[in-house]
Each structure stands twice: as C-alpha cells, then as structure tokens.
C-alpha cells in the first residue's frame, strides 16, 4: 500500500464539490477518487456538466463562491492541499501543478507581452534564478526564449515582445502551455487544450505535450470530450458522468472493451469513417440535472441495459485488470 502511494503523484479521495444555487444545491462532483501516477498521462472524458473540469478545478483550488469543496482529501505528493493556506496553495499552484485553460485568448493577459507573462511565472516560482538584477533579467529572458522554442514557436526572441492578440489560436495555446511549463511543474492539467483548435493544429499541440512529458518526466491530466484523443495519447482513462466516475482503467481496455453502458454509448455514437452507411446509435435523452438526484444509477433513464436492480446506490465494480465500472452488470466484487 505504501509503495503504491509512493507511485501516486496526485491522489484525490472522496471529493465532493457543490454549487449553491437558488434552485438548490448542485452537486457537480460527487465522491470522486482519482489517482495520477508519476509520469503517466491520465485522460478524463466526459460531456459538459459531467464534473470533469470542476474536479480538477478543485484540485487547483480554483473553486469560488457559490461553489465549495464539501468533502474529500486532495493529496499531492503526500500533502493534503485542502489543509494549506492561500499562500502555500499559491506556491504549489503554478510551481508544482500547472493548468492550461480551454480558451487561450481569455486566459492570457491581453495587456502584457508574452515575455512579461512568462517572466512573472518564473519570478514567482523559480528558485534557481541568479540574484543580481541584470543577471536575473538575462536568465529569465534566455529561459523564456527557450520555453517558446520548446513549444515550437519560431523566432522566440522577437515573439517574446508581442502581445497575445498577435498570435493565432494554435500559437496562443502553445504559449499557454509554455507559461504552464515555465515553472517545470510535476503535474500538468490540460483542460480541453485542443477543443478550440483545428485538427491539424490539434495534432501538433497534443504531440508537443506528449514530447515534453517524456522530456521532463511530468504527469499529465488531459481533460477532453474526445475519445479519439484519449486513445491516442493517454495511458489510463476515467470516464465521468453526472459528477461521478462511471468507468476507469487502461485506455486500451476501456476503449476496446468498455464495461459501462455510458462508455459503450459514447463509443457507439461516434460517427466514424469505418461505420459509414450504418446507423449510429445515439444515447437517448439528456444529462440529468444535478439537484436532488435520486439514490440510484445516474445513467438509469438513458440506459439500454437498465434493470430494476439499478434503482439503488451503485459502487465501482472491479472488472479485472485494473478496470472498474459503476454498473451492476459488471461481475466482480463490490469495492464500495
């Protein structure tokens, strides 16, 4: 058990994040357990409202009123992040854990040049900068140019002096990755890094993240709605639905042998070139509202395989080989 914990860089246990609204308490994340091992790439798949962004927003300490973390432990390298004060959290955020946002245009400060934004991160988090003022400045400039080079931006020296709006969408996403990587984090959380990008650019950005992961030996959490992206770039995957994890395991297992009807449905509803002419099988219905959810399988109303036994609280079931699914049809032991 101890050895296993050593391998885990991030361990989230029983996370519950709620948002207070006039209509009631919305439970956006309900009892989520996540482990991210050192050096691995974990894919997190889910549709909007599944709680995938809120889960990692909670890890980053980005949940603000009307939202709050209701329960759970967030262990990063053995430390519980929830017990840290704001200053300690700031030190971890950005230095040890970095996050990139889906919308690079709004996530970058339009009033500062790219170089200034990179320098800000380095000033705040890099301990090995020289102490002399001019030496420090030079070191920061060199390192910034190196970061831009690393993310594949040509002529980094001139680009450092430009503002975010002078870059294209793909370039901005890379700049955000460069800023996220400037402090050499041990964990990169990439929230839909390619959703706003075209496929040819998407491939470039994802390959860049993979290359850097290999080079710096960091762990990556890739939040996406695209199962194709997950199957090409992630070692393990967790599928979220209505605030819960419904399935997790090695990517190849989950994608080729899905156990949960929702995962099956997602895979079945992908229009694929190879399925031309065949009818696609969409999942019927809508994601349930996350208020006053009945104590039953949350996918029940949309499930093709539902049964009366599903109308109870269902735990994750072990499907063997490290694959788990929240479905009674999975034969195996109930692991609570």
């Amino acid at each position: 058990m101890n050895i296993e914990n050593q391998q885990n860089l991030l361990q989230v246990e029983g996370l519950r994040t709620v948002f207070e609204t006039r209509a009631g308490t919305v439970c956006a994340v309900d009892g989520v357990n996540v482990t991210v091992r050192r050096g691995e790439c974990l894919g997190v798949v889910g549709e909007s409202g599944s709680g995938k962004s809120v889960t990692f927003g909670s890890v980053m300490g980005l949940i603000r009123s009307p939202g709050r973390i209701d329960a759970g432990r967030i262990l990063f390298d053995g430390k519980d992040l929830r017990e840290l004060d704001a200053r300690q959290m700031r030190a971890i955020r950005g230095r040890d854990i970095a996050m990139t946002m889906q919308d690079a245009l709004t996530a970058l400060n339009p009033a500062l040049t790219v170089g200034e934004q990179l320098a800000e991160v380095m000033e705040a988090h890099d301990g090995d900068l020289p102490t002399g003022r001019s030496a420090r400045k030079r070191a920061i400039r060199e390192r910034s140019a190196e970061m831009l080079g690393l993310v594949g931006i040509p002529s980094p020296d001139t680009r450092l002096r430009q503002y975010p709006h002078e870059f294209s969408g793909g370039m901005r996403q890379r700049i955000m990755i460069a800023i996220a990587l400037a402090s050499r984090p041990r964990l990169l959380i990439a929230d839909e890094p390619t959703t706003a990008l075209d496929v040819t650019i998407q491939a470039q950005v994802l390959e860049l993240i993979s290359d850097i992961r290999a080079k710096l030996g960091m762990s990556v959490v890739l939040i996406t709605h695209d199962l194709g992206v997950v199957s090409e770039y992630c070692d393990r995957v967790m599928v979220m639905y209505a605030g819960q994890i419904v399935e997790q395991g090695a990517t190849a297992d989950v994608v080729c042998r899905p156990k949960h009807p929702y995962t099956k449905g997602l895979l079945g509803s992908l229009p694929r070139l190879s399925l031309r002419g065949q009818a696609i099988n969409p999942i019927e219905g809508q994601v349930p509202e996350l208020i006053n959810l009945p104590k039953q399988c949350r996918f029940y109303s949309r499930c093709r395989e539902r049964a009366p036994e599903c109308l109870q609280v269902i735990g994750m079931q072990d499907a063997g080989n490290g694959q788990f699914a929240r479905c009674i049809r999975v034969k195996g032991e109930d692991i609570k």
Partner: protein
Amino acid sequence: MSGTAEAAPLISVENLEKAYLGRLSIADRLTGRTHTVVQAVNGVSFDIKRGEILGLIGESGCGKSTLGRSILRLQEPTAGRVTFDGQDVTALSPSEMKAMRRRMQIIFQDPYASLNPRRTVAEIVGLPLQLHGLAKTASEARDLVAEIVAKVGLKTAHMDRYPHQFSGGQRQRIGIARALVSHPEFIVCDEPVSALDVSIQAQIIQLLMDLRREMGLTYLFISHDISVIGYLSDRVAVMYLGEIVELGTVDAVLSNPRHPYTQSLMSAVPEVDNPGQRQRVRLTGDLPSPLSPPSGCKFHPRCPLATDVCRTSVPKPESVGANHTAACHRLAENLSLLETEPA
C-alpha cells in the same frame, strides 16, 4: 446513384467569389492607399444534386462558412453565379429573393446565439410562416409549428418556453424546426453539431438524416470534423484558404485522398480504432493569414511535397478518377504522404 447522376443539379455554383474590403481611414484615403482585400472565397465551383449531401470540410478561416452564406446570399458574392433549380439566385431582385428564401434555409452552429432570447419557441419557429404568409390564421400557424416541433423531437407542450429553458441539443432542434417549417428544399448546415456534446451530436446527426429522408432535403453540410463528414455525406469538398482543393465521392476522397492537404487532414484525426498504428503527416505552421495569402499553390508553405512550381503557379483542378478532382501540381507523380513517411 447512377440514375440521379444524370438529373439536373438542384444547386449549381460557378466561380463563386467573395472578397472583403479592408476599411480605409481618412489618412489612408489621403495618401492614396488602396483597399486591402481578403479573398474569403476564391473561384469555387460545384454542383449539388437533388437529395444529395455534399460535405464541405476545412479548417477555421478557410472560408467554408462564407461560402455557405454566399450561396444563400446572406453575404453578397462579389463574383460568380449560383443557380437554384434553374434560376440564377445571384440575379434575383430583393422581393424575388425573399420568396426564394422559403426554399433555401440554413442551420447554424451556435445553438445559443442563433435563437432570439426574448422570443418563445412558438414565435421563433413560427416566424417563417408569418414572413411568407404561409398560414391563414393564428391557429393554423400554431398547428404547423406544433407539427414540426414534434417532428424534430421536442414536446409541443414546451412551445411557449424561452430558449434559455432548453439544453444545447434541444436548442439545436428548435433551430432545425425553424429552418424546416416552411418546407424548404435545400439546407445549408453550418457546423450544426460542432458545439454539442458527443452523445447529443449523434442524436442531431441521426435527426438530420431522418428528416432528409422524410422531407426529401438536399444538404450542404459544412464541418471541420472529417469523421462526421465522412459518415453522412455522399460527396466531399475539401477547402483550403478559399479554394476547393479536392472534390469527389466520399469513397474516392477519403479512401484515396490525392491532395496532400486532404491526406494530412485525414492523418491528423485521432481515431478510436487502431490508435498509433496510422502514419501521421506532421504539418508545420499555421493556416496563413488570408490577408496575405501565399503565392502559387496556397498550401505550399505547409506542404511537405512543395517544389518551385508550387511556389509560383496556381494548380488547376484535374480529374483523378470518376467523380474525383484534385488541384495539385504533383498529382501525376502519384505521391502519397501517407505512404512515404513511416510511422
């Protein structure tokens, strides 16, 4: 398929162009500077047969949406001709055009921006009936609206609700109902599923396919998602910087892509099947700015096969098989990026 091939096309687009003029300030005018021109659509030609789905694929900024809107004259084309059912749409007077709008419609990408937030579903969907006088009485209009609302899979009991009370997928259904209530023949689907979640995407695709069959519709289906296009189209047009670089039946284009851009596009799509086993063509650089498009073949700065010819002369579309054309200087050499670069 062979029977319809001889029929006259429903839509015929010939050398369509749409250019935007940059704004000139007074200082520019005084110094005699000329307008900067953005050629969003540059000499595009194709036909769509009745009942066919033509998929139009391209990356953002390639001019595919502008092309769709120019065909409907939502943006006035600067040159070229669009013929709809034998009538030259580009030559119609405003009143004739208004009547024509009943027969050609558009479904938008953004289910949030495309519905007026202050109108109820009944008002939104009923607007075409009101504008074209298609219902004699208010109750007849309501019945027609209820009929189409039910057909797109919404509850008629929800007709008096406002758009914000619906989810993204349901809103897209409202947009589809609005486009179909006047029983048009031709629909431009401008990325109708890109803003939706995967499971909802499949529902809407299924709905569009069902409606086409039931109502005998013809689609120009615009998307950046090659899987969606490949799944539902009969023929595909690939667009790059305002020009169509490859056009043909889905089978021809997607199983035997001849233009290097199509090839790289196909190799970039991450697919669930056989991850990692496909060869990948790595394109370098971004889409160039349409303000200063490259000379010659517009793809040459990113093309791994580019030669001196490509930098200077513009390739013309050539036939590379039955119902399959591509515009590339190096077609004859029969090169394929997919084969030349090992994984």
